[in-house]
C-alpha cells in the first residue's frame, strides 16, 4: 500500500513541479465558469417552473459538482497512454498497472482540491450556497461513483488500444458523452421530453450526478446506491477482462 501512496504523492508533486503559479490559469477559468453558472441557475430557477428541485438544491448541486469535478467523472492518464509515453512508466515498475493509474489519478487531484475546491468551499456562504450534505450516504455514493468512474475509464482506455491512434478523438467523444449523460452539468431529472426517465438507468448516470442528487437530497439514496452497486458489479469484471485481453495489443508511439 505504501508504494501506491508514494505513487500518489509523486503524482501530486508532478502537478506543481513548474510552480503553483502555473496552475493559476486553470483555477481562474474554473472560478470564472462556476460563478456565472451559479447565477445562470439563479436566473433559470427564478422562472418558477416546478422541476422537483428548489433553487438552493440546484445551486448546491452545481457548486459541489464544480468543487469535486475531478471525482465526478474520473479521467486517468490511460486516456492518452499510447501517445504520451505513459506506458513505459507504468510497465517499468513492479506494481499493478491499474493500481498505479488509480494512485496517480488520486494524487493528481490533490493540488486542485487544495487550491480551488477548499478556498471556494470556504467562501460558499458569501455566494449563498450551502455545502451541508442532505444525507451521510453521500460519502458511500461518492466512493461508488469514483470506483465506477475508474472502471469506465479503463474501458475507454481499452477502446483506445483497439482503435490505435484515435486516442484524441476517443477522448473528445467520451468528454461529450459523459458531460450530457452523467448529469454533472444538468441534473438528469431536469431533462425535458421524458429523457430523464430513460437516462437515469444508464451507467453514466451513476457517476457524479447520482452522488450530487444524494448530497442535495434530490434523489432517493437507496435507489441511487442500488444502481451504483449494480453498475460497479457489472462493469468492473468486464473492465478487468477486456483490459487483460487488450494489453498485448498496445502500440505506443509517443514520448
Amino acid at each position: 500500500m505504501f508504494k501506491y501512496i508514494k505513487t500518489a504523492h509523486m503524482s501530486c508533486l508532478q502537478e506543481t513541479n513548474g510552480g503553483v503559479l502555473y496552475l493559476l490559469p486553470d483555477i481562474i477559468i474554473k472560478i470564472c465558469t462556476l460563478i456565472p453558472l451559479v447565477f445562470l441557475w439563479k436566473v433559470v430557477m427564478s422562472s418558477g417552473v416546478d422541476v422537483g428541485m428548489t433553487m438552493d438544491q440546484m445551486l448546491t448541486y452545481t457548486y459541489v459538482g464544480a468543487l469535486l469535478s475531478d471525482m465526478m467523472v474520473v479521467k486517468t492518464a490511460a486516456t492518452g497512454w499510447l501517445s504520451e509515453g505513459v506506458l513505459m512508466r507504468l510497465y517499468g515498475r513492479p506494481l499493478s498497472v491499474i493500481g498505479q493509474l488509480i494512485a496517480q489519478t488520486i494524487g493528481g487531484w490533490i493540488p486542485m482540491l487544495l487550491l480551488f475546491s477548499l478556498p471556494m468551499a470556504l467562501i460558499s456562504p458569501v455566494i449563498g450556497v450551502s455545502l451541508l450534505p442532505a444525507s451521510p450516504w453521500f460519502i458511500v455514493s461518492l466512493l461508488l461513483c469514483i470506483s465506477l468512474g475508474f472502471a469506465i475509464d479503463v474501458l475507454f482506455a481499452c477502446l483506445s488500444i483497439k482503435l490505435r491512434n484515435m486516442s484524441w478523438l476517443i477522448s473528445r467523444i467520451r468528454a461529450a458523452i459523459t458531460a450530457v449523460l452523467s448529469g454533472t452539468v444538468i441534473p438528469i431529472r431536469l431533462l425535458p421530453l421524458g429523457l430523464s426517465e430513460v437516462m437515469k438507468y444508464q451507467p453514466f448516470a451513476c457517476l457524479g450526478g447520482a452522488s450530487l442528487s444524494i448530497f442535495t437530497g434530490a434523489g432517493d439514496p437507496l435507489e441511487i446506491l442500488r444502481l451504483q452497486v449494480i453498475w460497479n458489479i457489472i462493469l468492473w469484471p468486464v473492465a478487468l477482462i477486456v483490459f487483460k485481453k487488450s494489453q498485448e495489443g498496445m502500440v505506443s508511439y509517443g514520448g
Partner: protein
Amino acid sequence: MEGKLTIKRIIGLFSISAKMDLMWLLRDTKFAIVAIIADAISNISVVSGVYLIALRFGGIGGMSVDEILFMMSYSTIITGLFIMFGASNNIHVSRIIGRGQLDHMFIQPLSLKVQFITCGFMPFTGSSNFIIGCVMLIISAGRLKLNITPWWIFMLIVYLATTMVIIFARAYLVSSAAFYAPVAAEEISSTAIEGTWQLSTFPLSGMPYFIQIPLLTILPEGFMCWFPSMCLLGRPPLNLTGLYPLIYALILSLIASYIFRKGLNFYVRKGSNRYVPYGFRR
C-alpha cells in the same frame, strides 16, 4: 524570398491546405470520418445543455427557447469556423511557440502572418459544425420570423468575423507567455479557448451587471455568441451600441499584436531549448 502577396496568392495558399485536407479524407477515410463525428458530437453536447435547460424552463432570463436556439446556432457556426480555419494549431499558437516549432515556420518563404492565417484551413473534414450551425440558424430564424435582409446577412458575417478576431487575438495574447515559459505555457491557449468554451455559451440575459460587465470587458466570453446574437435579434444588451464588439475586437487585437511582437523579439534573440540533439522534446 517571399513573393508579392496578392489575393490570388492567398487563395492559392488556402487551396494548398484544402487539398491536403481532401487528401487526408481520401487516404484515411475511416479516421477522418471519426474526426468529423467527434467534432459534431463534442459541439452538440455543449450547446444542447443550454438548449435543453431553455426547453425545460421555457426560456432563460427573458430569452425565448427559439432565441436560445438562435444563439446556440451562432455558437455552433463559430465552433465550425474555429475548426475549419484553426486546424494546424494556428489558433492554439502557444503549442507552436512552446514546442519550438516557430523555427519550422521561419524557413518558409512566407511571412508568419500569412502562414498563420492560411495553414489551418480544413474545409472538408472541419466543416461539419459550420454546416450544422447554418442549418440551425435557418431553422431558428424561421421560427423567430426574423426579417432577413441583405444588410442583416452582412451584419451576421461582420459579427462572425469579429468573434473570430476576438478568439484569435485572445489566443495570441495569452500565448505570448509561451515565448518566456515554453514548457509551462505550451497549453495556455487551450486553457483560454477550450477552458472557457462552456462559459461562452451562457445566455447572460437576466444576470446581474457584475456578471455581465466583466464578461464583456475583462473576459470576452459575452462576445462569443450572446452579445452578437442579441444584436442580430435587434436588442443590443446593456444599451450598448451594436458596434461595441467591433471596437472591443480592435482594441484587443492591438494589445495582442503589441505583446506578441515583444515576445517574438525575445524568442528571436533567445531561441527555444525544447529539443534535445537526438530529437525528443524536453
